């Protein structure tokens, strides 16, 4: 596969065309909205937790953006469902990038990480915990509200 076919491989296009977990949520346990200042891409993420207040029961997102940012967020929602919030809040970005599985230049990396960044901020906010060092400034960078 050449680079081009890798970046726009079928699974990415499929997630882009048919985003999983697309939509909004009434009364979420955690929620945040962010944008990539470079291109104006926006993502809002909603999380509901299970009875135990720890397990991620459901994740939904809405927004608009490029194939990479939308597909990555769609993949993310599948990845994190059923995992513990604390796990996801400290999830290394490499795990998502591996799942996406395409070569990314620094600029497209920002696209790919928009959803994860917003999700992390949402979870840490809901828990009242600070963002881990590696992600410091992220809420600022993605203008998370």
């Amino acid at each position: 596969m050449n680079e081009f076919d890798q970046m726009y491989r079928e699974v990415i296009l499929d997630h882009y065309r048919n985003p999983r977990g697309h939509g909004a949520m009434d009364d979420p346990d955690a929620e945040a909205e962010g944008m990539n200042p470079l291109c104006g891409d926006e993502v809002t993420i909603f999380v509901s937790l299970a009875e135990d207040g720890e397990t991620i029961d459901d994740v939904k997102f809405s927004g608009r953006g490029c194939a990479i940012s939308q597909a990555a967020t769609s993949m993310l929602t599948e990845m994190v469902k059923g995992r513990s919030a604390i796990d996801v809040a400290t999830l290394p970005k490499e795990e998502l990038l591996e799942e996406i599985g395409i070569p990314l230049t620094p600029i497209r990396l920002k696209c790919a990480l928009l959803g994860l960044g917003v999700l992390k901020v949402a979870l840490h906010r809901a828990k009242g915990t600070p963002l881990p060092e590696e992600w410091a400034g992220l809420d600022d960078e993605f203008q998370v509200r």
Partner: protein
Amino acid sequence: MAVHAQPKLDARKLRGDFPILEQQIHGKPLAYLDSAVSAQKPRQVLDALRDFYETSYGNVHRGVYTLSERATEGYEGARQKIATFVNAPSPREIVFTRNATESINLVAYAWGLPTLGAGDLVVVTELEHHSNFVPWQYIAKRTGAGFRTIRLTDAGELDLDCLEEIATEGQVKVVAANYVSNALGTVNPVERLSAWAHEQGAIMVVDAAQAAPHRRVDVQALGCDFLAFSAHKMCGPTSVGALWGRHELLAKMEPFNLGGHMIRSVGLEDTTWGDVPAKFEAGTQPIAEAVGFGAAVDYLEEVGLEAIEQHEHELVAYALERMAEVPGITQYGPLPENRAGIVSFNLDGVHPHDVSQILDYEGVAIRAGHHCCQPLMKRLGVAATNRASFYLYTIPEEIDRLVDGLHKARKVFG
């Protein structure tokens, strides 16, 4: 190949001057269609830079030795060339800056901060680059002056009908507008705005960052008071730009950056400023960059500004026509008659980032984003657009390859 008029400029030959264009990107020849953001550099400019550093480098104006004199000649010679290039009455009206942005900030800070106040109005356009928008908005806020924008018609041109209303809302003190829009290619009626500004007792500041590289700019014909531009968009090096200003305004202004060279005498109590333009050139100047800027201006004059304008006009007409074939395309901006070599568009269902990325795999470099024109993007109701922009080295085949790439993008996302 469908260029209609007899080309006065031989882009194919000129390409030979640009070493960077000889390369392949992802296995395809590079088609650089992002000259509005920055132009590539001809060998002539790179040679001038290198030669200067290898034979004549020294600090300017200060040393009583040969190298310093040579460097001063190079630097002041460049100032003279640039003055001639924009038809400035005198070379001392040319201030070297880092870029057009800094040229505008210089005026906003040094003229605006001490001059503006409550009841005054600062007027810009909805079509401005952030560099001619944010400084004015900021200085207006700091001084309590009002801030107004001249709105756009749906064709992407300035709606001068709103001027009368604006004038009733306060004392207009400064009008700032670009000559050519970097986002849409619109050529603005700067002469009319200058006349209106002067009727109001205001100064007229022209952002010529997109005009100076592509058409003959004549500060006296435009009737403006300040004019800003950047070397890097006109085949010159980065980190040097120019501000032209009327001498009587420059002479009365406060300085901006302070430090070495811009003073006459420094005392514990009192410091006095040097003459124009030294007053505005604090610290070690962009010496080699100015020399490169001069070489770039020589290069453009050699090719001919009129020939460049004509060449780009043909390219943009061809591009607008060819791109209209692509299904799902939306084009922004005015008719080719009133337009520089810039096309701005969106492709239904494909985000600009993806368009641009797919084109990169075809060796075609275009830009995706808000082009530092968020107010305009809001007006157009989009977050971003794709933009292709042309220069003297652009050939019609590159536009063909752009169009092919757009078809490919549609297929991928179809």
